[in-house]
């Protein structure tokens, strides 16, 4: 009887939402012969979702102000149960995500999957790589410890070496001439709002294009 109710309920939703079509298009689409290198995109997506979830959890305790940032992270690590786990996943997941995204790019390059009709998928992928690095750069400052402070001093100084516009870029990034409370809060805003929203949007287009074109087959001797 429960099965019957469940089937009826599912059919009701399916007729209105097209769940089966959605399932077929996203998870049941035809693939070329299985290859582990082709799973790196899904791995990147998984890491993005995981970083998103652990990041949301961290904002429950983290406070983006020079007075509180360091202490709030100390509290997450020692005062909150499983805080070390949530932050640990976010910390190591960040490095892992940069690596996986980069290897994903190398694979696409090596198998020449960026060619017609997938040029836009590649270009958006370049944007996703840059945004991922941006997430790494902005997130690095948030602990507000010595390493974070000086890494951001150096990183923003590099951006400041641009001819003509350098000083403007430097001050725009730092929110002033030196690192200060504005630097921390704008990096935090970029890290939790601006960059993730851009990433989410571009990931959507990226995945749409993959579903539309299907996976590229590996080139063989004839290619």
């Amino acid at each position: 009887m429960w099965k019957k109710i469940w089937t009826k309920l599912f059919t009701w939703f399916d007729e209105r939402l097209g769940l089966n079509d959605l399932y077929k298009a996203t998870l049941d689409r035809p693939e070329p012969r299985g290859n582990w290198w082709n799973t790196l995109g899904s791995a990147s997506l998984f890491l993005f979702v995981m970083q998103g979830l652990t990041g949301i959890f961290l904002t429950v305790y983290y406070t983006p102000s020079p007075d509180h940032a360091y202490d709030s992270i100390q509290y997450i690590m020692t005062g909150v149960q499983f805080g070390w786990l949530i932050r640990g996943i976010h910390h190591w997941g960040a490095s892992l995500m940069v690596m996986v995204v980069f290897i994903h790019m190398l694979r696409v390059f090596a198998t020449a999957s960026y060619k017609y009709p997938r040029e836009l998928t590649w270009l958006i992928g370049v944007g996703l790589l840059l945004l991922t690095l941006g997430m790494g750069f902005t997130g690095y400052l948030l602990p507000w410890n010595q390493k974070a402070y000086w890494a951001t001093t150096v990183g923003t100084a590099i951006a400041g070496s641009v001819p003509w516009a350098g000083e403007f870029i430097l001050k725009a990034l730092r929110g002033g001439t030196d690192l200060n409370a504005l630097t921390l809060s704008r990096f935090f805003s970029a890290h939790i709002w601006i960059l993730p929203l851009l990433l989410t949007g571009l990931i959507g287009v990226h995945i749409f294009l993959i579903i539309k074109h299907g996976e590229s087959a590996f080139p063989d001797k004839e290619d």
Partner: protein
Amino acid sequence: MAGSHHISRRDFIKLATVTVGGVIGAAVGIPGIIYLVDPAMEAGGKDAWIPLGPLENFEIGKPTLVTFVRTQVNGWEKTSNSYGVFVIRKSEEEALVLSNRCTHLSCRVNWNEEKQAYICPCHDATFSPEGEVLGGPPPRPLDRYEGESLKIEEGVLSIHFTEG
């Protein structure tokens, strides 16, 4: 395969995926929930004896507000909270102490000399000088400090106060 196993390769993969996914999900999900509700599991409500001053300083029969500050470490920060009680000196040796926290929704009540009542500014609750409910929404009288939670030593009035 040979009819002995009734589970297909595809179903096995599905089952394995759900099982492994479930175990990983629980291994991270349950700690995640504990992480979120952690402050609720801290032991709260510290108690202490708070001296309110020499009894002789209080006028007999007139409710007098006494405030004191308690500090508490929440997370990584020390927070100071202000509390208040009304002292009503009954005689040379006796006193009644009432919390100024309204029993409705915790606003702080004020003593109104004209109406001879405590009045809550939030929802117009009124309490008698002894703390009994005269009108408005409160479910019970003002909290009292008496008996075990009140002492007068060497003329100094103290209450046994518990936070929260």
